[in-house]
């Protein structure tokens, strides 16, 4: 902590707010948490459109039965790359961007604890994603074995071509970037809080990111290890996963899902934090059950580590294993339920208004809960035999990732953009964007439940004729959803360039300063903030408990 503050004080002897450096170098070498946050967010938004374009290819091919546009191998590449780009290029970096921007503001810290590492973790992310994208242009095409990269498929020369080592090194870079980001966030939260802020005074967003940070540090190396074993199997004739050499392909699934399951919580826990920040402000009430929200987040994170094999109910496990993973998975419904009930209780008896961030948040609670319900259905192992690897699963995880993670990232954008830029976004277009997104996302994903239950496997480029109608509806929803997101791009650019011209107050939202430190700062937020830590923590539940 002191190192950063000292350095800053040293440079700014005469006056504190000397603002950002000029020119391109400002962005390349910056150590300012706001600049780095902005870069993360811009990069994530760009990748959201790249991953989205791949989804459009998928939905176009599935519009009608028969093959129209792409070869099945390229279709598999698209499903694989869509997943990898969305997970590692869009959702995770977007949350890191939010963390960079908001956590120091929320806890009264001048910057992140390790600002130079912060810069490096961003640029490693860019390098990793570019390396991944380069595989699209390689002989044999991009990886097409699914984002799970299961061997032996992903090791087959006739399937995958030359892309595997590049994909693996890309995963290494992305993993290093994530781990460095997580270390930075944990160090910042534990060391740089304003002196008056106890752990249980921290905003929920900070809590959820702290816990997410530990998840990242725990599981990213596991994934790196798994893909490294793939690499040695492929190039150094080891047999970790090669049955002919005494290895076990199911071992890979265990290692992958030990990473892969917590990974889905990495993409949802910060979402919970954003929702817990936004809903109280627009309900004009303190968050209901702050302490149980914290404990529920911790419980979910713990459970995330011990349920991985519910992705493998059909892989072949002893009965005891099936039962254990079934019970453990079912239990996740309890802390998750507590969170949903608490958000409902926060809205109850409030004085609600429905600005765009609140609309997205309400849609999040409803649609995420629906994704949670199907998750509960899938936790029942015998039923999961029928759901597994069908479109029911696709519908489930897209309900938890698109109208949950992505919607809350949008909500966070609308919520904090006025704070960051000092300009108000265009509320009319914002609401239009919301309604188009909320309606089309359901046209897109709800019919996929029917497809799965009717027996359509996932990851197939062509399908039996009885699946045609729902696929067509789903594709139409997909195209509308994809096109609607261009509105968001427009709003972001418009807001940065001045928005509605309306001058926003420091609080931006009515009485927001009662809910968090960041609203006591000027809008736009100055380049340097909290060079002296704030004295009091103005969170409502804190004022009561002090």
């Amino acid at each position, binding site marked *: 902590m002191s190192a950063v503050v000292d350095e800053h004080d040293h440079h700014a002897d005469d006056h504190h707010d000397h603002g950002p450096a000029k020119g391109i170098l400002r962005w390349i070498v910056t150590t300012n948490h706001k600049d780095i946050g902005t870069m993360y967010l811009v990069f994530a938004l760009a990748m959201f459109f790249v991953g989205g374009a791949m989804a459009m290819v998928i939905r176009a091919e599935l519009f009608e039965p028969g093959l129209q546009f792409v070869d*099945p191998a390229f279709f598999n590449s698209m499903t694989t790359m869509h997943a990898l780009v969305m997970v590692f290029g869009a959702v995770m970096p977007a949350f890191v961007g939010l963390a960079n921007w908001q956590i120091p503001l929320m806890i009264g810290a001048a910057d992140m604890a390790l600002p130079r590492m912060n810069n490096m973790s961003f640029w490693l992310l860019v390098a990793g994603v570019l390396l991944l994208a380069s595989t699209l242009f390689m002989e044999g095409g991009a990886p097409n074995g699914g984002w799970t990269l299961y061997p032996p498929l992903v090791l087959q020369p006739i399937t995958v071509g030359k892309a595997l080592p590049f994909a693996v090194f890309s995963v290494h870079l992305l993993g290093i970037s994530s781990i460095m980001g997580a270390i930075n966030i944990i160090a910042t939260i534990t060391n740089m809080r304003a002196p008056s802020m106890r752990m249980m005074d921290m905003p929920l967003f900070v809590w959820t990111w702290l816990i997410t940070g530990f998840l990242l540090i725990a599981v990213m190396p596991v994934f790196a290890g798994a893909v490294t074993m793939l690499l040695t199997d492929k190039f150094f004739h080891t047999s970790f996963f090669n049955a002919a050499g005494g290895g076990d392909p199911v071992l890979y699934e265990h290692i992958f899902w030990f990473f892969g399951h917590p990974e889905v919580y990495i993409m949802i826990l910060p979402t919970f934090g954003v929702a817990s920040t936004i809903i109280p402000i627009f309900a004009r009430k303190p968050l209901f059950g702050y302490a149980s929200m914290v404990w529920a987040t911790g419980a979910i994170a713990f459970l995330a580590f011990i349920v991985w094999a519910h992705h493998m109910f059909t892989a072949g496990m002893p009965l005891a294993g099936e039962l254990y993973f079934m019970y453990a998975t079912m239990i996740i419904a309890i802390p998750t339920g507590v969170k949903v009930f608490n958000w409902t209780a926060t809205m109850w008896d409030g004085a609600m208004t429905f600005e765009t961030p609140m609309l997205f948040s309400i849609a999040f609670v409803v649609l995420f809960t*629906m994704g949670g319900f199907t998750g509960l259905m899938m936790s029942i192992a015998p039923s999961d035999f029928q759901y597994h690897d069908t479109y029911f699963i696709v519908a489930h995880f897209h309900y938890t990732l698109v109208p949950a993670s992505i919607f809350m990232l949008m909500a966070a954008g609308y919520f904090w953009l006025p704070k960051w830029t000092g300009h108000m976004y265009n509320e009319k277009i914002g609401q239009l964007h919301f309604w188009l997104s909320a309606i089309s996302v359901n046209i897109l994903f709800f019919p996929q439940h029917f497809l799965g239950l009717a027996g359509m496997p996932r990851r197939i480029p062509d399908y039996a004729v009885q699946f045609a109608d729902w696929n067509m509806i789903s594709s139409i929803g997909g195209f509308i959803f994809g096109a609607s997101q261009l509105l968001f791009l427009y709003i972001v650019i418009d807001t940065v360039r001045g928005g509605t011209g309306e001058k926003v107050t420091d609080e931006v939202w009515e009485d927001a300063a009662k809910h968090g430190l960041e609203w006591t700062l000027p809008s736009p937020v100055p380049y340097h903030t909290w060079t002296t830590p704030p004295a009091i923590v103005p969170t409502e539940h804190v004022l009561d408990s002090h």
Partner: protein
Amino acid sequence: MNKAKQLFAGLILMALGLGAAQADYTLNLTKGVTKVSNDIYDLHMLILWICVIVGIGVFGTMFYSIYHHRKSKGHKAAQFHENTTVEIIWTIVPTLILIGMAIPATKTMLELDNVAKSDMTIQVTGRQWYWDYKYLDNDIHFESHLDEASEITHRTVGADPRSVPHYLLNVDKPLVIPVNKKVRFVLTSGDVIHSWWVPALGWKKDANPGFINEAWASVDKAGTYRGQCTELCGRDHGFMPIVVIAMEQPDYDAWVKKTLDQQKQKPDLSDQSREQLMAHGQSVYLKNCVGCHQINGAGVPGLIPALTGSVIATGKWESLDGFLRAGTAKMPSFSKLNGKEFAEVMTYVRNNLGNSVGDTLQPKQTALPDDDDDE
């Protein structure tokens, strides 16, 4: 209930201008033809209804407050933010609901896992991209490939899938089992991970290379049941369907006898006309070669060599023959084919797919002495 749902879906479809829906689409899991699949259907409905009721409670409360507790209606916000009793209630009640779900789920899981006392065993081997079935009790052994009509249609851009009966869900040789017998399945794979799923039986199970998985089914009702591979297994993952025909015992016995007789027959090595060779050759090609080399012989650039204009395909037939039988690092050995099939497929490859060597190979030329023992 189902009628109401169908009607509702029909209305949505009509509203979207899509006309009448396909007759056999469904909105919900269907009941299968085994006891386990019916138990699973009941479990599915139980949990679905629990979710619906919880959902109505939560969303109802939320929308009540959204409607009534609006600032625009002048509602003043309360400031409560803790209530230990309430928070304990919404931990304990879900726990009790979960226990209520876990009990029937555990029962069904125990039933599914019990493969003991089976009447017969079938070994299922997944391969890229077809299924290989072996009846361990009577040595019936055959491969089950996607049917030719679907094969040609899905590989032809612009072809109309709606003209093909059971498009992508039909095979050349279906698996046949007797009804009301406990059939044990042992599943494994010859290359990558596949997954064997027939929804009507109530389970799916992965076929892993190097390992054996077990499952069982006892089908209540004679009929034809269809499914597909559900684990991403490469380029043709979407094109390896499963068809199971359940027969009454006398029909099944007759099928076993007929199939065993056919298996004992030696391949007919008599000469064929060029047209016959080409037509049969196409069938052999569609089953064995098309997954990699494509329907036009173009291969996959960078991954799989083209047959069109290939020196190996159009050079001396004897070297092509040796190549096919031995296999390579990338291509499996095709020694499973008999002399007749070799003559047919080589004639086809050398005189179609953009090649025109002009020779006509007869089964007698390509047969090996032990070909008679094949199959």
